[in-house]
């Protein structure tokens, strides 16, 4: 199929092309309680072709592009039509000129996975068992679970000779747990992403969320709490640091959102812990590990924020060209340096630990954050009480100078960073 497309491209007007070819096979199981409700499989072939057309207008050189999906069932005529439509469209896409990615001699860091040691089907029973072997409580259970294992054969080629191929395994378990104590049954949601088969890790995650669901069932409505610091945890921390990644991104700089120079102070007058962020092409058990980005640019580790200062821009070849920085490619994994304060010290004085949200969001452009609280733990200096309801809102610029990071770390798929971030200067709305 690819050779057919490359051959047809020779007869279509273009000044370059890029092909992203992905063949994915999956096994999918859907459980309601402990019973299998449906099993599915898929084998799908996706080919995306980007056609580039260079043109001059008023003495300025532009590079237009247009991406089209080529279905494997397309006839020769349909493929040619699609590519010609893309070529024509690219001629009206007026983007500042940039260079395509050239072949590189850099060493490729391929994602590894122990799923490659056997057939995908062989791992399904173990994954199912890893969830249900800890589902042994009287008042709570796994309400429903969905299992997905994907194997993707990926090939990226362009007209300059880039040709990179690799295989990637990704897994996902979507889990709903419920629990009933005296009042009403409650539930929590958990999505576990992975690229390694590790049944113990999965069992631990499931057991953990079951225990949190129990706490949610015992929780009371969040009362008004004044002057208590908050400990962010889990996915909220991953969201929080996206604010800094956006400020180190060449694209928003080009678009006029930010204009930081290398060495610029992003975090302000820091009295707490300084932010240090590295992006990495390969992180064990991450579904976002990749030797190159979708343009075929070979990826390497880059330290983007150092001690709260902008250390390096990140960006694909196009936007890096535009703002005059060295391209890094689009890198899928993030590592945030932990702090020096152990969890035991962070939890020594009164705190409100926010464990689960409906959907904690940080707007990386404006810095506004907020979310409805599904489970929080309040320590009043003597005992811990679970609460639910109410919400937290604020802006990153108001909390960033006083953030304290835990010494302990956590990994959430493609994020490795502190287990807790202690913050102040936000707004808490009680439940009632």
């Amino acid at each position, binding site marked *: 199929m690819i050779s057919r497309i490359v051959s047809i491209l020779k007869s279509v007007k273009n000044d370059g092309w890029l092909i992203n070819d992905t063949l994915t096979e999956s096994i999918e199981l859907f459980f*309601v*309680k*402990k*019973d*299998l*409700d*449906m*099993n*599915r*499989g*898929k*084998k*799908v*072939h996706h080919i*995306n072709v980007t056609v580039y057309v260079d043109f001059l207008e008023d003495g300025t050189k532009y590079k237009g592009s*247009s*991406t*089209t999906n080529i*279905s494997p*069932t*397309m006839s020769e005529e*349909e493929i040619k039509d699609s590519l010609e*439509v893309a070529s024509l*469209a690219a001629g*009206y*896409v*007026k*983007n*500042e000129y940039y260079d395509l990615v050239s072949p590189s001699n850099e060493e490729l860091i391929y994602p590894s996975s122990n799923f490659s040691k056997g057939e995908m*089907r062989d791992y*399904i*029973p173990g994954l*199912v068992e890893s969830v249900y072997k800890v589902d042994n409580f009287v008042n709570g259970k796994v*309400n*429903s679970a969905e299992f997905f294992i994907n194997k993707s054969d990926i090939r990226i080629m362009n007209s300059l000779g880039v040709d990179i191929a690799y295989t990637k395994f990704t897994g996902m378990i*979507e889990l*709903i747990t*419920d629990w009933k104590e005296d009042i009403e*049954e409650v*539930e929590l*949601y958990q*999505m576990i992403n992975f690229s390694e088969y590790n049944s113990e890790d999965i069992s631990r995650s499931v057991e953990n969320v079951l225990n949190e669901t129990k706490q949610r069932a015992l929780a009371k409505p969040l009362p008004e709490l004044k002057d208590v610091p908050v400990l962010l945890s889990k996915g909220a921390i991953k969201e929080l640091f996206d604010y800094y990644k956006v400020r180190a991104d060449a694209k928003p700089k080009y678009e*006029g*959102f930010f204009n930081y120079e290398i060495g610029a102070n992003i975090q302000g007058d820091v009295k707490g812990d300084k932010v240090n962020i590295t992006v990495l092409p390969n992180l064990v058990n991450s579904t976002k590990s990749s030797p190159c980005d979708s343009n075929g640019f070979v990826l390497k580790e880059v330290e983007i924020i150092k001690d709260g200062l902008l250390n390096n821009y990140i960006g694909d070849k196009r936007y890096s060209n535009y703002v005059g920085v060295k391209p890094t490619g689009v890198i899928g994994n993030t590592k945030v340096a932990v702090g020096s304060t152990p969890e035991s010290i962070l939890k020594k004085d009164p705190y409100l630990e926010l464990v689960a949200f*409906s*959907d904690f*969001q940080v707007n990386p*452009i*404006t810095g*506004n954050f*907020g*979310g*409805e609280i*599904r489970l929080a733990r309040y320590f009043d200096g003597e005992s811990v009480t679970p609460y639910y*309801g*109410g919400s*937290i*809102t604020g802006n990153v610029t108001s909390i960033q100078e006083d953030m304290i990071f835990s010494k302990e770390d956590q990994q959430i798929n493609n994020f490795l960073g502190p287990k807790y971030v202690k913050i102040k200067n936000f707004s*808490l*709305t009680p439940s009632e």
Partner: protein
Amino acid sequence: MKAELSSYLSKHRELAKGLVDTLLKTYEYVSILGVDTKGKTYAVSRKGSSINDSMWSERGYVLRVFNGINYSEYSFNEFQEKDIRSIIDEVKEIVEGDVKRLKGQNVKFSDYPLIEESLIKDSLIKEVKVLPSTVSAKTKIEKITQIMNDGLKLSDQLIDFRVVYEEVHISKIFYSAKKDLSQSIVYTTAAMVPIVKKDNDIKYSFKSYSGLKGFELLEDLDGLEKLVEDTIKLLDAERVVPGEYEIICNPAVAGLIAHEAFGHGVEMDMFVKNRAKGVEFLGKPIAGKKVSMKDGALSAEEVGTYLFDDEGTLGTDTTVINESVLESGISDLLSAMKLGTKPTGNGRRESFEKKVYARMTNTFFVPGNDELEDMIASIKKGYLLEDYNSGMEDPKNWGIQCMIAMGREIIDGKLTGKIIAPVLMTGYVPDLLKSISMVSDGLELSGSGACGKGYKEYVKTSTGGTYIKAVGRLG
């Protein structure tokens, strides 16, 4: 202009039927859904533009087969005469091999009856004024570039004024022993996004448009001045003092409440999992007396409209809430079979590659008779909430989270001109619905976004309503 069914599906229809007929010799129920969706997204910003295939573009098939206990599915997109043998082998591996292996691992199966169908042969070909495929890429990009340039002229504080236009042509066929269905539908969406900056403060907002329309949708884009003016006001917006307030929700926010806060809670696959609080309220008052709510592929003409869903069930017009009483949930076929109810034609897939879930289509509060001016006049201290950035459902415990774009302060029955933003509205759904005391006339639907279930499974839906007055907790 008629949106004809894709020539690819028309040509391959007999091949798909042949595959089903072959599999029916082995399995008691087999159906196939074939999808060929073509679309383009055009986007312009101050620093660049793009024309790419729409994220909804796809071509492929999904087979559903009764495995003797419940149903197995196989999705694929390589399908020619020569592929039939390998497709049948894959189906056999999933329907027989995987099921046998899982049984051997002591996995228990949830059993379903055999799908019983009536004989139906039907098709839907929708029409639009101007088929997008008849207009050149040049005309489209020039049109949205002109809108962008008009917007950029309105203020020096604008760092960008983005315009996006998307056109999607969906063609689907469904075939089983008794059903032979096809549909071809075109919809378009557009959005204008002004972005303003003062010092290091950046704010943006958007205005979106959608409909079962063609290129003519771009003629609807209006109100640039007010949009830019409101976005600039966000730069001086204050945060709300957390608390409970009388609120008026504009149709977009009302739609968000109908969709996120309530709609997800009546998706009946959630009833099967005992994940929906809605079950407890069936036949009981759930909202203020003036509140009625609908959902359905036939309840409105918007992006959630179709003849049949992704299981081959014909779309319906479901009254979910009738004058405060919760009357019905919305259902896919398998959930209805499990619950012993009638499917409402709400079984939808993100794509041919994904499983069916019970999903909303066009969801909205039914208009009432109150006037917006009277609603504002009735508020001592509160806010008129306009537009939203996101929402998240909690069908089990009926908590709500609505990230509202802005609120206009109302004091002693008058808008003061003061703006709050952003606003997080939270609370308990029945409390919010029961607090709805006034409902205006004039239904407005929007289908510019996509709806997820949890954090995945995105489908096109439209939501909306009218202005509603309620009491909400803002933070």
